């Protein structure tokens, strides 16, 4: 052995021996030391925000120095820069409380994704061909400005449309200002699984147009109606933290959790009791429970007040909803209904959650109101262990006045005849910010054709997806880790939260923060737009907005605004336990609601199955299908990776002669798709379930052309009151078409398979 090597080894091993110290004589060496045994590198943890879903978890980003290949003004070179290595929850943050969900953990790959757009692009090929050429930022912005000025000249500002994913906080403030001063209609926010119905219901019942926060940690009894609160629904991390406490957090006390849903979801799998009520009968069941409670006088205090009065026949004790009455309609026996009602009343504070599929049918609103009434009857509204509403600090804007639902998108895109008198000129220019309606709306909406008809489309997203591939101009945004981010969570915390974070790392590519670009454009346009947006940068705008917080009682004490600002950034945001929700003002309405049974919309005899979409716990609504980590992580229940599948009840499959892994065709009135069958003992015999997430036509090398998109065959239906996509109202038939290929990580369904053979 070379003397030099020997010295090297003994040096390393010396250190190791020191580490291994206790009980081990120093002569004991580990040869060929694994690098884990070496000194760890130096890292700094920078506060940031997870922007992958509206929950707005506060994060810490582990940043370490490294060499990166970067292109700076045209030339490629190696650059020493801070690199994000790991993302963890920010322990101080009221929403994440130091934790993260799988999606948040994978956010790292958004920044370092090989198919990120590396600079501004101009379309060269035909629309949607994905053929672009790189151009300079200056040219790109000039082009956008020119287009906007052209519209101004033609007095057609109203024909500018801004399509984005849901906006909150300062980001939305700036965009809305830009649009209003420019003269364009407000931005259209689009997401597949939006919560408009729930907001509307809470507005009607409690006067709060807001997604609720559930105080699970202090509840003694929890009953969920389709609300996948441990998966992707609402504020999953905060809810999971609370779930841990409600299960084992309080010595000697363990909350019972009942889940009502036709397909055993990841959330349902954790329930103490699982009740596969008929799809759509959740509202009836809730009222059945209310009936028993009122009949047996199990409730304390006044009977639900306003929330109840919205329900038809409430005052008369819901006579129509006796257990015997509703048993056949819900598929739940009268005994069970009665027992549940008694348990609920006996274990207050008890809370009922509703979300997801039950709200995504044309009659969804009534179901939400029924559950609201039940909560009110249980006296758990805005009470510990019940339904709470996160106080909204000044920086958070009230919910947008504009509708934010598919119909309006359709209208704006000039597809359907306008529903109201407001005359909407056809869209002359469309600005896209991450929203992906081509993927998120059924083929029946003919979005692609609409996009083809729009003269000018500019996209800000940092990936080419099914929609932005239609853009003429691409002005790629930074990744969330590279840019200023802010969020004011609508739910998840019991007190007001404003998260603001500085860039954790320097930009890797030739990208620009979307809002900086917007400000730049505003200044170039001049006039009222420029006046309304005086700030040079988004950072500046945030800093100004944050001033409003300093006056309020909160988590930060500072003598001047700079100190306040620095403390705020160091902490990753501002939050206050002392801000109370504003007094609730429910709107007056004479309307009375009665939930109907299972969705019968467009029911045809040859479509015997209710088609249930489930948000993938990993790929969410499909917007995360481009991250390889999430693609390869097994789905919690099916354990499938990198693929789509169709879930069929065991008995049903036997009846149809379908075996695990067979390729099946799912056909609705509006289209058909194929995917391998997955036999699932935890799904109702008359329900076919499919995960949302795969089936992108164009979304990076990892997601493009993979699996099938169940949304594509949905009936073009909406919830009338809000216009949200009614994604749970489609019925389908299935037929076996041959051999399929499932990629499952888990082999057996059962822990003792031989007992089931």
């Amino acid at each position, binding site marked *: 052995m070379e003397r030099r090597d020997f010295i090297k080894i003994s040096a390393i091993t010396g250190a190791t021996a020191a580490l291994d110290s206790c009980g081990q004589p120093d002569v004991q060496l580990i040869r060929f030391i694994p690098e884990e045994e070496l000194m760890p590198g130096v890292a700094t943890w920078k506060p940031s925000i997870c922007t992958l879903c509206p929950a707005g978890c506060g994060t810490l980003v582990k940043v370490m120095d490294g060499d990166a290949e970067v292109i700076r003004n045209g030339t490629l070179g190696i650059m020493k820069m801070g690199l994000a290595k*790991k993302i963890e929850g920010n322990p101080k943050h009221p929403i994440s409380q130091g*934790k993260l969900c799988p999606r948040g953990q994978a956010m790292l790959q958004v920044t370092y994704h090989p198919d990120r757009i590396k600079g501004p692009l101009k379309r060269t090929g035909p629309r949607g061909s994905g053929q672009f050429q790189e151009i300079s930022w200056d040219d790109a912005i000039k082009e956008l400005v020119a287009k906007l000025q052209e519209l101004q000249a033609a007095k057609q500002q109203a024909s500018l449309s801004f399509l984005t994913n849901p906006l909150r906080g300062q980001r939305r403030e700036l965009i809305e200002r830009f649009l209003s001063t420019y003269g364009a209609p407000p931005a259209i926010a689009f997401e597949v699984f939006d919560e408009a119905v729930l907001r509307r219901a809470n507005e009607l019942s409690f006067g709060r147009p807001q997604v609720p926060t559930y105080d699970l940690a202090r509840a003694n009894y929890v009953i969920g109606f389709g609300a996948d609160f441990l998966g992707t629904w609402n504020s999953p991390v905060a809810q999971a933290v609370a779930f841990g406490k409600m299960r084992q957090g309080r010595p000697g006390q*363990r909350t019972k959790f009942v889940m009502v849903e036709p397909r055993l979801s990841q959330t349902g799998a954790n329930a103490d009791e699982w009740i596969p009520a008929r799809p759509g009968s959740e509202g009836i069941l809730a009222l059945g429970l209310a009936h028993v409670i009122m009949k047996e006088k199990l409730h304390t205090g006044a009977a639900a007040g306003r929330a109840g009065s919205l329900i038809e026949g409430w005052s008369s004790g819901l006579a129509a909803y006796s257990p015997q009455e509703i048993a056949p309609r819900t598929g739940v026996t009268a005994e069970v209904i009665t027992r549940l009602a008694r348990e609920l009343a006996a274990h207050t504070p008890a809370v009922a959650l509703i979300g997801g599929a039950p709200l995504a049918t044309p009659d969804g609103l009534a179901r939400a109101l029924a559950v609201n009434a039940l909560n009110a009857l249980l006296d758990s509204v805005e009470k510990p262990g019940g339904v709470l509403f996160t106080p909204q600090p000044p920086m958070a804007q009230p919910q947008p006045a504009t509708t934010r639902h598919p119909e309006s998108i359709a209208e704006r895109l000039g597809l359907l005849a306008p529903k109201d008198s407001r005359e909407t000129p056809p869209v002359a220019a469309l600005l896209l910010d991450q929203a992906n309606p081509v993927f998120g709306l059924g083929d029946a909406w003919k979005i692609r054709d609409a996009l083809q008809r729009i003269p000018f489309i500019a996209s800000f997203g940092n990936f080419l997806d099914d929609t932005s591939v239609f853009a003429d101009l691409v002005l790629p945004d930074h990744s969330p880790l590279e840019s200023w981010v802010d969020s004011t969570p609508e739910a998840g915390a019991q007190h007001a939260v404003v998260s603001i974070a500085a860039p954790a790392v320097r930009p890797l590519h030739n990208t620009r923060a979307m809002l900086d670009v917007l400000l730049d454009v505003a200044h170039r346009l001049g006039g009222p737009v420029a006046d309304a947006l005086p700030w040079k940068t988004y950072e500046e705008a945030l800093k100004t907005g944050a001033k409003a917080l300093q006056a309020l009682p909160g988590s930060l004490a500072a003598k001047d605004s700079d100190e306040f600002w620095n403390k705020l950034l160091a902490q990753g945001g501002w939050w206050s336990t002392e801000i109370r929700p504003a007094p609730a003002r429910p709107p007056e309405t004479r309307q009375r609601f009665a939930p109907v049974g299972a969705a019968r919309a467009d029911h045809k005899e040859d479509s015997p199955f209710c088609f249930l979409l489930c948000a993938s716990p990993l790929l969410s609504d499909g917007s995360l299908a481009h991250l390889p*980590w999430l693609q390869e992580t097994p789905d*919690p229940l099916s354990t499938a990776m990198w693929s789509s599948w169709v879930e069929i009840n065991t008995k049903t499959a036997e009846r149809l002669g379908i075996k695990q892994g067979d390729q099946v065709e799912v056909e609705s009135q509006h289209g058909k798709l194929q995917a391998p069958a997955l036999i699932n003992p935890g799904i109702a015999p008359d329900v076919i379930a499919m995960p949302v997430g795969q089936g992108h036509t164009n979304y990076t090398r990892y997601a493009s052309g993979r699996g099938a998109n169940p949304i594509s065959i949905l009936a073009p239906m909406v919830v009338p009151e809000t216009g949200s996509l009614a994604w749970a109202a489609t019925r389908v038939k299935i037929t076996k078409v041959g051999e399929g290929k499932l990629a499952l990580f888990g082999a057996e369904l059962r822990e003792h398979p031989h007992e089931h053979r």
Partner: protein
Amino acid sequence: MEPKPQKKWAMVVDLDRCTGCEACVVACHAENNIPTVGAKEAAIGRAMHWIRVERYYEGEFPDVRAKFRPVFCQQCDAAPCEPVCPTYASYHTSEGLNGQVYNRCIGTRYCANACPYNVRFFNFYNPVWEKPLHLQLNPDVSVREVGVMEKCTFCVQRIKAAEIDAQAEKRELKDGEIQPACAQTCAPRALVFGDLNDPASEVARLAKSNRATRLLEELGTQPKVIYLERESWHDGENS
């Protein structure tokens, strides 16, 4: 250095808290530079997940339940994987972990066969990170080449880091100071890590629970992962 009891790292998994969300799985990939093998390889069973959440259905519709059980290297005291390795690639560290020295591994795959928990993973090809995904790699963890066996290390790099800090500050390690990536991100706190030899530690306390079991205990592998069985709700227990 004054003599103190040997560390005995252990993990407690509370199955009544675990929601099966898979956050631990992704966190583990991020922390330990675990390669993604792609659709084709994953389909034939070569996906690498140092920690996996096993899902088992119970009963038939409508009385069906599903339960989750996170499984990762059990860091056995009497580990079947260790003695069978001809090159000491899998060895027992002084703190009771089942170490895996990648540089020593020649790929007999014997350890993986001997492991009753199937928690060892093999690099069938050289791992690939399409640029610039390689920038996300954690420099504290070595990247494994083709033909090498790998597995959960209890995030030994984090343990070492904490121990170094403690030594630098001339103090004892605090309970809960060390958190493997999986435990760190676990929202319902189903995963708790600590020193079993420290009677004051949370793991030591939880390990005494009447719900405590160990996986495949009957094989005599003496795992250092303690599972707290899921509870069932009985009326009146709370009032």
